[in-house]
């Protein structure tokens, strides 16, 4: 079990999640963040703070998002850890509004 970042992060990558992760289990590529399920301790801090609601617990994935459990596992192994917040991707606010509507 672990928390999982889904495709709603793609193109936003606000990284608010990174600031509240107690165990530095977030990884990063050009598009989005991923959670390393081996290090995540299920504290649940990241899910409510994500501005676009991209993060869900693996035991409660929304319909059609289950693939992201495995994608997080794979991509976290291939990408570097991110320990501090970075600026969101260009166009993030626009995408966040689109996702909210």
């Amino acid at each position, binding site marked *: 079990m672990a928390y999982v970042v889904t495709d709603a992060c793609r193109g936003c990558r606000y990284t608010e999640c990174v600031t509240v992760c107690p165990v530095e289990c977030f990884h990063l590529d050009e598009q989005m963040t991923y959670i390393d399920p081996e290090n995540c301790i299920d504290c*649940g801090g990241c899910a*409510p703070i994500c501005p676009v609601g991209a993060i869900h617990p693996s035991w409660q994935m929304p319909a059609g998002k289950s693939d992201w459990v495995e994608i997080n596992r794979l991509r976290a192994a291939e990408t570097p850890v991110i320990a501090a917040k970075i600026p969101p991707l260009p166009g993030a606010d626009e995408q966040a509004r689109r996702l909210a509507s």
Partner: protein
Amino acid sequence: MSALARIAVVGSGPAGFYATEALLRSGVPVAVDMFERLPAPFGLVRFGVAPDHPKLKQVTTVFDRIAGLPGFRFIGGVEVGADVGVAELSACYHAVILANGASLDRRMGIPGEDLAGSHQAGAFIGWYNGHPDAAHLSFDLSAERAVVIGHGNVALDVARILLKTADELRHTDIAAHALNALAESRIREVQIVGRGGVERARFSPKELGEFGDLLDCETGLDPDDLPEGIPEPSIDAGVEARAVAPILRGFADAQGGTGKRRRCLIRFGLEPVRLAGKDHVQSLQLRRPGSDRTIDLDCGLVISSIGRRTAPVPGVPYDARAGIHANLGGRIQAEGVPVPGLYTCGWSKRGPHGTIGTNRACGVETATALLADLASLPAPIGSADALVASLAKRTGHTLDYAAWRRIEAAEAARGRAAGKPREKFVTRAEMLAVAGVAA
């Protein structure tokens, strides 16, 4: 400023560790002395997080890593405010960060609150987690019904520990005295009572959901409390609040007939009025807020979990309304003016809210404020090394991190024998003896 800046961090819970990490990784030449009143570090991770949530406790591997950073020193067994004053620390350090949490329970302020059988959550949680200040307490588990007052995750922890079977707790790091007492518990029903409705409850969906998976306990609601049913969460409710409603609906719709022998009732819209009993709690009177309708519940144990506040530290400005050290963004303030060199983080800065990781962002904010002020802070007049040496003499038993690791190893060894992750030592004397530190 080029010389090494020396910082005292008071408290070794998540807030203290994350502020320390931010300081030691800042690139500024800084050394941190972390003061802890107990022989064991980690604050609420050790003494607050429930024993049946072991995964959360894995965060201590991060704290171990921080403790290994160059410039870190742990000074356990020293209580700031008692063994050493804040003024004395301030004289020997460039800055002091108070991360002493929120150790005081808020009281209900109703008649009968001091009867035997009436407790505050902090005492019960300290007891089952083997806190040296609570290990000697006893809780009467002989009556059929217990009532927990409060609608937050702490209330859920208390109720869940009361409702789990001994087998569900046996392989956790629950204190042995608590496991033995709970194995003999005659409690068959726990009511979790809150003043407000569903929208005011502060349960996390994850913690609430665990009440659907208890081995020998069914969870339900009382239809009298919610005549209109469970309201749809408002559109602007957060992710958490939106996830809570369907879980509660599941409890409300539970049909029973599972043969489980214990029951949990989550009650809404009831405020405590008084506790009654001869020498011991026998009943609790509740009232619908704004009406005269009262309900009397027979019960032998009442545990209130309605909030916490920071213990004031002598010489540190206190915000009595918020129950925290008076501060703005982590800078401690007297009458709205920052006190040079005095900072706070964690629950003693922002109140008892958030997850473990919230303290990381909080610690970073305080450390950033401190580092921005550093050039303007006067150099200490006293020597931190001399102070630490004198404290060892004064208390007779300070512990460094290696001494703590000896305690930790001994607890793990005892735990293996009992099939538990650790069997905690629950008195200072035992811990000091195992650490090889004179008591």
